[in-house]
C-alpha cells in the first residue's frame, strides 16, 4: 500500500511545497508570511517522514524529527516573538508588480526543471522526480529575498531557501549524513538568533526595520 502510493504522495507534498513557495512570494502581510513558512516546514516534515517510511532509512526519521522541532516549532516561535517585540506584527508591505514577480517565478521554475532533469535521470531514489521542485523552491526563495525591502521577510526568505535545500538533499540522496544535517541545523538556528539581535540593533539605530535605509554604502 505504502510502497505503491507512497512515491505519489511524496510528489503531491512536493507540489504543495512549490505552491507554498509561490504563496510566500506574493504574501504581503508579515504575520501570514511566517505562518506560511511554518506550513512549509510542516509539509517538509511530512514528506521526509514519508520518504523515511518508504525507504526504511533510519537517519531520515531523525532528520524528520529535527525538521519538526526546528522548522515547525522553534523558528516560527522565534519569528513570532521577534515581530511582536519589534512591533511589526500587522505590517503590510507594498509590493510592486506581483504579477510580474509571479511570471519571473514561473520562468525560474522552468529553469530549475531543466537544470534538474539530467541529475534526476541519474538518481536512483524514489523521490528523484521532485528534485526539480526542490531546486525551484530554492530559486523562488532567492527571488523573494531580492524583491522584499523589509528585513523580516528577507530573513524568512533566507530560512525558506534552507528548506528548499533540505528537500533537495532528501530528494536526491535521502538526506545528507547525520553529522552534516545536525551542523546545518545548528548554523540555521544560530543564524536566526543572531539575526534577531541584529534586527533590534537596526531598529534602535534607524527606528524601523526597513532595509531601504541600508543603501547608503555605495561607490561614488
Amino acid at each position, binding site marked *: 500500500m505504502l510502497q505503491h502510493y507512497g512515491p505519489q504522495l511524496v510528489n503531491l507534498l512536493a507540489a504543495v511545497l512549490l505552491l507554498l513557495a509561490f504563496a510566500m512570494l506574493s504574501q504581503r502581510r508579515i504575520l501570514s508570511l511566517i505562518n506560511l513558512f511554518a506550513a512549509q516546514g510542516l509539509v517538509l516534515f511530512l514528506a521526509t517522514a514519508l520518504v523515511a517510511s518508504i525507504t526504511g532509512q533510519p537517519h531520515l526519521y531523525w532528520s524528520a524529527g529535527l525538521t519538526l522541532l526546528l522548522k515547525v516549532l522553534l523558528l516560527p516561535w522565534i519569528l513570532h516573538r521577534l515581530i511582536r517585540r519589534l512591533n511589526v506584527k500587522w505590517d503590510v508591505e507594498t509590493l510592486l508588480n506581483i504579477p510580474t514577480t509571479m511570471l519571473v517565478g514561473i520562468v525560474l521554475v522552468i529553469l530549475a526543471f531543466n*537544470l534538474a532533469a*539530467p*541529475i534526476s535521470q*541519474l*538518481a*536512483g531514489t524514489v523521490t528523484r522526480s521532485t528534485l526539480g521542485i526542490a*531546486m525551484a523552491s*530554492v530559486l523562488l526563495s*532567492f527571488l523573494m*529575498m531580492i524583491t522584499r525591502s523589509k*528585513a523580516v521577510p*528577507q530573513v524568512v526568505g*533566507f530560512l525558506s*531557501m*534552507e528548506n528548499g*535545500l533540505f528537500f*533537495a*538533499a532528501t530528494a*536526491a*540522496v*535521502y538526506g*545528507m*549524513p547525520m*553529522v*552534516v544535517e545536525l*551542523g*546545518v541545523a*545548528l*548554523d540555521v538556528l*544560530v*543564524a536566526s538568533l*543572531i*539575526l534577531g*539581535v*541584529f534586527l533590534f*540593533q*537596526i531598529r*534602535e*539605530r*534607524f527606528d524601523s526595520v526597513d*532595509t531601504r*535605509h*541600508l*543603501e*547608503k*554604502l555605495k*561607490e*561614488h
Partner: protein
Amino acid sequence: MAAEMLLLLASPLAGGAVLALVGHRGYAAEVNAGFAIVTFGAAARLVARVIADGPLSAFEEQFFVDSLNVFLVALTAFVAMTTSLFSRPYMRIERSHGRVTDAGMRLYHSMYQLFTFTMLLVLTTNNLGVMWVAMEAATLTTVLLVALYRTHASLEAAWKYFILCGVGIAQALFGTILVYFAAERILGAGIGSLLWTHLAAVKADLEPTVMSIAFVFLLVGYGTKVGLVPLHNWLPDAHAEGPTPISAVLSGLLLNVALYALIRFKVLTDGALERPFASGLLMGFGLLSVAVAAFFLSRQRDIKRMFAYSSIEHMGLITFAFGMGGPVASFAGLLHMTVHSLTKSAIFFAVGHAAQKNGTQLMDGIRGLVKVSPTIGWGLMLGTAAILGMPPFGVFASEFLILTTAIAQQPWAAPILLVSLGVSFAAIFSKVQAMVFGEPSAARLPHRPALVPVFTHLALVLLLGLYIPPYLADWYRLAARLIG
C-alpha cells in the same frame, strides 16, 4: 597526531567559551593573546609532525593534513596570533575612545577565538559537509563584529555581509549535496562519501555532468566569500566598517580559506571532467576580479576600503593562477596566498593605528604619518611597497611567476593583467605617499601602538622574496602537483 589536532581545535574553542565570560575585563586582551599563542604552538607541533612523517589523518579520517593545507594551517594560526597581539592595544584605544561597550568587548574577544576555530576546522576537516558548516559558522561569528560600533554604516555593512554571504553559501550547500550525490553512486551512502580523501581516490569515476553543475554552484557559493567579482559587494563594506583587527583577519585568513575550499573542489571536478571546465571558470572570474578591482581602487577615499579592493584584486590574481594550473602557476598561487595574507594583515595593522591617530579613515584626513610616528609611517610605506609587488618582497616573486606563466600559456590575458597591475600601482602608491609624507595632522594615542606584528610580517614577506625554505618549497611543489 590526534593530540596535536585536538589541541589545535580545542584551544580556540575553549578560548571562545572563557572569553565570553571574562572578555570585558582588563586582562581579557592578554587571555585572548594567550589562547592564540597556544593555538599557534599546537599548529607548529602539527607542522613539525607533518615534516617528520608526511601527510597525516586523525579520528577515523575525519581530519587530515596534507601538503595543501599544512602551510595554510600554520599561516592561519600565525596571523591569528599576531593579530591578537595587535588587537591588544588597538581595542584598548577604541575602548578608551568610548566606541565599544563592555558587552561589545566580551562579544569581540569571544567571537575572535571562535572565528579562529571555524577557520582551522575548514582547513583540517576531511568532511566536505563539515567544511560547509564551518564556513557558514565563520560568517556568523564575524557578522556581529562588523556591526560592533553600531553606526549606520556598520549596521548596513553587516546586514549586506550576512545576506550576501548567506545566500552565496546556500548555493555552496547545494553544490555539496550534488557532490555527495555523485559520490554516493560509487562509494555508497554514508559519511565515507563526503570524505575528500575517498572522493579524490575515485575522482575519475565521478559523474561529469553532475560534477560540472556542482562546481558552478560551489564557485558561486565559496566565490562570494573569496570576494570574486561580481559577488564581491559585501567585502569593501565589511572591511571598512568593522574593527581593524577583524579587517585584518577577514583579508588575511577568511578569503584564503574560502579559496582553499574552492581548490579542493576544483581538484575533484578536474578529475571527473576531461575538459578544463573548472579552470576556465576560475580564470574568467579571476581576471574579471583583477580588472574591476584595479579600476575601483583609484576612486576610493576611505583607506580601509581601498585596501579591501586591493584584496579583491589579489584574490582574483590567485584564482587566475590556479585556473591556469600547471606546476609553476599553482606554485605561484600558493606562494601568493601566503605573502598576500602576511602583507595585507600587516598593512591593516599600520592603517588601524594611523586611522586612530588621525581620528578618521578618510585618506584626505591622514597626513604626514612619518613625522608623527616614523614606525607607523614606514610600516605603511613598506607594506604598500610589498603589496604592490616591488622587489625584493615575496609578492614580487609570486606575481612575476604568475605573469610569466600567463605570457607563455594564456597570452590573451597578459595585457589585461599588466594594465590592471599598473593602474592599481598608480592608484595606491600616489594615495599612500600623500598620507605618509606631507604635513602632519595626528594626535597622541592613549596607549602605545603595537608595531612588532607589522614588521614581523613584513620581514617574513621579505624573507620569502629572497629565500624560500626547502620544506616550504617542497610543500608548494607537492600541493601544486595535487592541484594540477
